[in-house]
């Protein structure tokens, strides 16, 4: 069950040109957290910005009660968040959402992340490695400096492949290009993906005729984070007049099966 609480900021540091690492002490939240869930964060203390910001959980530690969020500064909310200092209290709600469904883990697993969207996959990778699963990790970024946790991933027993759109490291191009290449040579049963919506859309034709269970973590402009306001919806296929109904990204998701969502409608 999610809670609203005042967490303590243990660190809030810049890790590259645009991204920050926020470390919080939130034991009550960590107790309940699963990979793929998020916190709804009051970035400042006043009326600006008015709304909370949904920020994915990057990693968490059950023993210490610490939780890490990686975020990219690109708006008023994250700009204000970047100015918060360690030692301060911050109002957070969480953990929210369903996270990744790990009840039916398969043999050949791929974890795929693009840009800041790769951040929430770290907790999932930790979980899968802990379960001694064979995991291939594909991550993409604009440039080498923006690749998340490369050094940490290199230390883990995972098959790591990277892509940079400027070609500065690894596969030159989008991570979806790397995905297409990978699927030509290897078979997978299950893919967990998180990244910008265009990346998720670009995945569709690549995985379309393959027998792979694909789970996507979505993002949408969000209001309440409780499932009440119906702002952050996505289309899910159903048999009705319209052929779809809207589901809530915050509490029905943020993870959905690729074959149930309509991304580009």
């Amino acid at each position, binding site marked *: *069950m*999610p*809670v*609203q609480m005042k967490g303590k900021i243990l660190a809030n540091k810049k890790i590259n040109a645009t991204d920050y690492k926020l470390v919080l002490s939130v034991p009550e939240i960590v107790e309940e957290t699963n990979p793929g869930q998020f916190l709804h964060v*009051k970035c400042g203390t006043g*009326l*600006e*910005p*008015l*709304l*909370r910001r949904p920020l994915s959980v990057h990693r968490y530690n059950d023993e210490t009660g610490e939780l890490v969020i990686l975020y990219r500064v690109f708006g*008023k909310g994250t700009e204000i968040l970047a100015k918060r200092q360690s030692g301060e209290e911050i*109002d957070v*709600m969480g953990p929210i959402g369903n996270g990744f469904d790990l009840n039916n883990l398969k043999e050949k697993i791929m974890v795929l992340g693009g840009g800041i969207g790769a951040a929430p996959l770290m907790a999932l990778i930790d979980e899968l490695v802990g379960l001694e699963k064979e995991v291939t990790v594909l991550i993409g970024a604009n440039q080498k400096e923006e690749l998340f946790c490369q050094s940490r991933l290199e230390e883990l027993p995972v098959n790591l492949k990277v892509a940079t759109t400027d070609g500065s490291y690894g596969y030159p191009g989008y991570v979806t290009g790397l995905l297409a290449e990978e699927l030509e040579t290897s078979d997978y049963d299950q893919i967990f993906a998180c990244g910008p919506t265009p990346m998720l859309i670009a995945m569709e034709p690549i995985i379309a005729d393959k027998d792979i269970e694909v789970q996507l973590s979505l993002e*949408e*402009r*969000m*209001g*309440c*984070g*409780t*499932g*009440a*306001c*119906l*702002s*952050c*919806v*996505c289309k899910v296929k159903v048999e009705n007049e*319209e052929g*779809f*109904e*809207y589901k809530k990204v915050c*509490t029905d998701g943020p993870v959905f099966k690729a074959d149930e969502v309509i991304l580009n409608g």
Partner: protein
Amino acid sequence: MDNINLNVELNGLELQNPIMTASGTFGFGEEYKDYVDLNRLGGVMVKGTTIKPKAGNPTPRIAETPGGVLNAIGLQNPGVDHFINVILPKIRDYNFKTIVNISGNTAEEYKELTTKLNEAEGVAALEVNISCPNVKKGGLAFGTEPKMAASVVEAVKENTDLPIITKLSPNVTDITEIAEAVEEAGTDIISLINTLIGMKIDIETQQPILANTIGGLSGPAIRPVAVRMVYQVAQSVDIPLIGMGGIMNSRDVIEFLLAGASAIAVGTANFINPGVTMEIIDELEEYLVENGYDSVQELVGLGHR
């Protein structure tokens, strides 16, 4: 603080305290059960309900503005039958009063909604939404034309003994004209205000942010408008008012009470601080004790001179 009386009685609608949650911001109540002791709320004005299920508008449905939120949800809801059969049984045992916000395209649809809800167990009152800015037909049109507003209220009134609340739109030249028309038509209570129509354009894409182009503005940015309208309507009608519009804390609640509202509803603030209603109830009680009041009703309308 046991001797402080927070009860209010609004023309047939009795509440354990004057703090409610506004339609569209609190789902059907249970969405907030992890954050709020729902049993302490005076009332929950549930998500706008229509005859048939409504899918709602495409996204983006929400945009942030200085001190405000623009939304264009488009009345997404599961329809009145689902509400009565599935949702109502889950919420009717809470201590809060369930107030069902109803929306139709025609007076006939309002009548049909009323007839169905009149027979349902656990409905304390109906809130007649004649002011939704985000649907193409009905909604707002009913709320800006006094005769049409009255016709909807009459259609509801004729088909129920439940207290009727009529929710007014601020998007009119003279809100007292509409208020007087719905009072005349038999509404028991007036709630105000619904959202102000607004718009935001993304200067990067050079296009409106909301898929619906326009949306309803809520949040603290609209509070002065709401307070003014409550104050004006309080002077022009004799029925109780439920004030809403940008209430963020107990100070704002007191402002609405002074303006002439007998009860209030918290809306957008639930998104920002999900526990805000509990804080408000505690602080309101403290304020009354500190200032020597026995009952919250003593504050109502004190701002009029």
